[in-house]
């Protein structure tokens, strides 16, 4: 807050890119080319539009069992909180300033964040150990427990990016000039 933004936005970038052609001609050029297939095992990013979501799917019911087995030790039974903050919170948006308990249903703007984060980072002691179907099922369970989807809703690469998060319209960038928007 209160900070004046410097003009280091898109215009500057475009000018640099024009000046830089041909790309890397004079650089050391010590990078090794790699194919899309060979880099795929590291490409964990899931975008809000669903780009990067793998095949597969899961349901809240499947996720309930997985959560009890893999997650409840830290996140508490039914995600109500344990040694870490709760992932299931019943206070609806909007939140009310500092100290608010932020969680999936009352805060997150994009449902894809769930899949992206669980796949890359969870369970804490054994990341990357879940199958994509298991990640989809846990995503479905947490969206259901946070009252974002119904118990009957299955989650896959098509349905997940279509989930409308309740708090999605309550965000604005602190530094708009520095924050590129879609054209």
């Amino acid at each position, binding site marked *: 807050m209160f900070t004046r933004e410097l003009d280091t936005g898109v215009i500057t970038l475009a000018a640099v890119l024009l000046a830089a052609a041909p790309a890397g001609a004079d650089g050391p050029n010590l*990078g090794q080319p790699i194919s899309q297939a060979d880099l795929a095992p590291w490409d964990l990013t899931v975008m809000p539009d669903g780009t990067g979501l793998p095949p597969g799917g899961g349901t809240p019911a499947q996720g309930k069992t997985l959560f009890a087995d893999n997650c409840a030790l830290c996140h508490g039974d039914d995600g109500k909180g344990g040694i870490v903050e709760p992932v299931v919170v019943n206070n609806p948006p909007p939140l009310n300033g500092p100290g608010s308990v932020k969680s999936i249903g009352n805060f997150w703007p994009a449902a894809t964040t769930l899949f992206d984060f669980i796949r890359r980072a969870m369970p804490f002691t054994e990341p990357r150990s879940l199958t994509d179907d298991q990640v989809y099922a846990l995503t479905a369970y947490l969206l259901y427990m946070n009252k974002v989807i119904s118990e009957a809703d299955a989650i896959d690469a098509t349905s997940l990016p279509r989930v409308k998060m309740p708090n999605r319209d309550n965000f604005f960038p602190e530094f708009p000039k520095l924050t590129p928007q879609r054209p």
Partner: protein
Amino acid sequence: MRTNSEHLTADLVAGNGLLHRRALLGRGLAFAGAVGTGAGFATGAAAEPLREPDWSLVPGDAMPPYQVPSAFEKSVVRLIDNPNSQPVISHARTPHHLLNGIITPNGLHFNVNHGGVPAVDPSQHKLLIHGLVTRPLVFTVDALLRYPMVSRINFLECGGNSASLFSNEPVQATVQQIHGFVSCSDWAGVPLAVLLEEAGVDPKATWFVAEGADAPHLTRSVPLSKAFDDAIVALYQNGERLMPGNGYPMRLFLPGWEGNMNTKYLRRIRLTDAPAMTYHEAHTYTDPLPNGKSFQFYFIQEVKSFISSPSPAMGPKAPGYVEISGVAYSGTGRIAKVMVSADGGASWGEAALQEPALPKAFTRFRMPWRWNGGPAVLQSRAWDEAGNVQPTRAEFIALRGQTKSPATWPQFPSHHFNAVASWAVDSKGEVRNVYA
């Protein structure tokens, strides 16, 4: 010729004993004389007779290949909250009250690790650049070490630094507990723009998504313009390779921007046309406001300062001369001015800024003070070269809000706190955190 007491009067610049900063440059001698003869603050007790100490009578120890601080400095350590590596986030806070200058020693740099400190083998670590590029590339550590490098002295601050000052009641905590998530180092590495240009940037790219090789595969979205401003892939910290807790063997370094975005153990950069809305940008470092809206993409760590000495448990030992000292910094540029108050903001005097005052770096400020042994409230307030001013706490919480019930110092009620902080000094020289 003026008397010592006339010097004293002339050197007062603000209420409750703040002296002109020229007292730091030798004019303080006049003040010292005044204390000894007129004000009665000095003890006046004669020093003990001198003798040779034991360590001057025998040769000392052999030199270790990598030296560590004196055994007498063993209390100068980071504050660790997860020593047994429980499956939760781990924090290590810098002991600002025991340091001076602008460079944080590598062993004392703050750390926040979201999944422990990984043991990355540099011979196997790789950096992948892909997405909206002409040709995806993989760089080894050895390859990056052959690139032309730049080095800069920059602060690095966690978005959660000073977060306990969002509490509606002042927490009782030290400067290390409150402000320990900021440090300043000389960072050296390869400009990210050079690597991106070799991969060939698609004109549609506006963001990049960075990812680490730690267990949580921590990932953040960064506007691509930062890569062509001053971002580097950092390999060295204060002259030596990065500390493990700071991202060995390489990290993204974004001068002046929120610590968590400076992805450690950097292994992947994907150019995109939108932010990925990763966990840490969707959840952790997005700040709810009292009006129900939330600040998102809070990149810049804004102009800020705090007093490191005196501070809680480091209060003045006796009335008389006290140097008030601390650090000021801004994610927008150089520090232009720091003002200090000893009366809770009723009056202010300009502090001396220690050279060098570098952009997006700690600037050490110093203010001479004649403590009369009575109550005082010490504050510092910084201005940067862009004209930004550190807000008062009242101005800050009017927009950002505060908690409805008291928080404790390890809690993070919100993030990105940069308002003026206040230390109250009582007649015993004890210091505590207050709001003023």
